[in-house]
């Protein structure tokens, strides 16, 4: 996604990336980054949690409109409400992705 953000930004359209991995996004010179400490697959929070969804989107909009320099990063201080182990397990697909399966079993 940093690649797309950078291409869009270079074409003159401002961008802001909401991501679970803000350190990586910033390292890839993403112009504006909003970090969330949420499990993968949930950049705007949990289903039905409109308060958190609005908080994340409005923060991203403020950063989009208000950041004054490249590589701006703002992290959102919201703790995921489920225990880490439970959330870690829940975000993963029911079976390993093809690339992970290939890594686990390189001889196929």
């Amino acid at each position, binding site marked *: *996604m940093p*690649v*797309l*953000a*950078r*291409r*869009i*930004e*270079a*074409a*003159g*359209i*401002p*961008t*802001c*990336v*909401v*991501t*679970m*991995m*803000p*350190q*990586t996004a910033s390292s*890839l*010179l993403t*112009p504006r980054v909003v970090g*969330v*400490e*949420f*499990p*993968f*697959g*949930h*950049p*705007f929070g*949990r*289903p039905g949690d*409109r308060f958190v*969804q*609005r908080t994340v*989107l409005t923060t991203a*909009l*403020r950063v*989009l*409109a208000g*950041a004054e*320099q*490249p590589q701006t990063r703002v*992290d*959102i201080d919201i703790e995921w409400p489920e225990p880490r182990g439970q*959330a*870690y397990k*829940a*975000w*993963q697909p*029911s079976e390993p*992705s*093809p*690339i992970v399966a*290939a890594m686990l079993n390189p001889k196929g």
Partner: protein
Amino acid sequence: MRVDSFRFLPRSFVPLYENVTPLEGEQDVVWAPFEPRLAGATIALLSSAGLSVAGEQEPFDLDRERGEPGWGDPTHRVIPSALGERALAMSHLHVNNDDTLADRNVSLPLDVLNELAAEGVVGASTRSHYSVMGYQQAGLGTWRTQTAPAIVDLLRDGGADGVILAPV
């Protein structure tokens, strides 16, 4: 408070991400100033969740990815902001899809953006939003040469003053 970027990442993957450096050809700083007032701005969304309009659009190609694990479908889909009750399909083999299928705003907050536009927080939502499928190790070249320019053209045609992007 600093977000821990690796809190939910498998430990064996952390070394792949913790010391990344800018990609070749991506070392320059890019910056487009945001000029309008937010309350007058038209905003677009771009998700990497592999979303398509169920029953209307071709889903992303997961069969080929299953056969070629290093490949990911590099195409994009145009999602109407006035989606109403129509459902989105999600094609992504790297995360559990259930929560986005239960509430699209988890990955593509188009209903939230419509609310913010109605309240005057932003001027408007673009008429369309966009989705790609975020697993792109082999497809980055196509993203650069085809997908990104196509999305830029769509954003310009739609009058987007800014874009919120969200990888899953």
